[in-house]
């Protein structure tokens, strides 16, 4: 009996690995590009932006983010309904299967608060993106000055 289980073990393990391959984490299918941070002076919060591309067959959702360089990172969404700007915390941003979603000025963005040490334009800031299934992905965000626009070349990093 014991012998038989031992013989079956490699097959069982193999099956598990195959299963893990089929149900890979959301983060494995996300490619990050155009990741940049808009710095504001002093202790003011910064906005972070990136394009997230999902090459998987399943939709993914960005739940939030964290960074060792900032005490707090929140997923926010700006809106200007009826000519009034407001910014609110949101739970997630959907990234459709074989599609993309963007953290972009005027819409979804990450708000980075309380830098541990001053971040300067040109710095690269590592931000960990958290997805709905608990998987995570590190991405390098390029810090840019306050007057940067989305037309800039804050490129780099694909997973």
């Amino acid at each position, binding site marked *: 009996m014991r012998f038989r289980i031992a013989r079956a073990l490699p097959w069982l393990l193999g099956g598990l690995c195959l299963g893990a391959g089929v149900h890979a984490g959301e983060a494995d299918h996300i490619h990050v590009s155009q990741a940049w941070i808009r710095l*504001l*002076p*002093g202790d*003011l919060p910064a906005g972070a932006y990136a394009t997230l591309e999902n090459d998987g067959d399943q939709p993914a959702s960005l739940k939030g983010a964290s960074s060792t360089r900032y005490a707090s990172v929140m997923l926010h969404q700006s809106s*200007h309904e009826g*000519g009034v700007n407001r910014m609110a915390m949101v739970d997630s941003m959907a990234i459709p299967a074989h599609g993309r979603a963007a953290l972009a000025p*005027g819409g979804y963005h990450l708000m980075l*608060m309380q830098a541990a040490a001053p971040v300067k334009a040109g710095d690269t800031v590592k931000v960990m993106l958290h997805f709905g299934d608990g998987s995570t992905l590190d991405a390098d965000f390029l810090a840019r000055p306050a*007057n940067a626009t989305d037309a800039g070349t804050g490129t780099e990093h694909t997973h």
Partner: protein
Amino acid sequence: MPDRSRLAATRRLVLAALAAAALAGCHASSQPWHATDVSGSTPDLSFDMTRASDGKTVTQADYRGRIVLLYFGYTYCPDICPMTLSHLAQALQQVKGAAGNVSVLFVTVDPARDDLKTLKDYAANFGPEFVGMRGTPDELATLAKRYRVAYSVHPDPDPAKYVVTHSSALYAFDRNGKARLLSTPDRSQDDLVHDLHLLLDPGVSA
């Protein structure tokens, strides 16, 4: 035949509406501005506030002879405000003669949290034309009411829960302090550049 007369009346109304629409269409096509023309319907520039760059109390008189763009926001705004101001800065760079002739007044709707130093540093990021303005709650309320600008501040010790909303209106005044245009951040940069050219043309703002 009450039915027929009602029909005729309806037809006349429809014709009148079509004529009005046609006239409005002609008017719109001859309209030189890309943003909304508010000449005559919006009050002249008038304010009394502290200028962040030097701490001086200033009024509209200090900006006579300059094109003034008036925008409300707050410095803890990491997204829409800097996006709007950056687009404005880019537009200004494309307009010959804008430097030295245009001032962008960035009025904080959150004077309790935005001190003059922070406001000064914030505005300076976008160029010399950008000036931070801070009023007392009364001064702010007066200015906002004058231009029908809505804002709200819900302070909270937790910065994540501190919520500020503000109207995204951008007003343009000519060299005489007359209100001319109302724009919004979603308007294209080309529109802004186009209208700034017109505002700077003395033939238009005279």
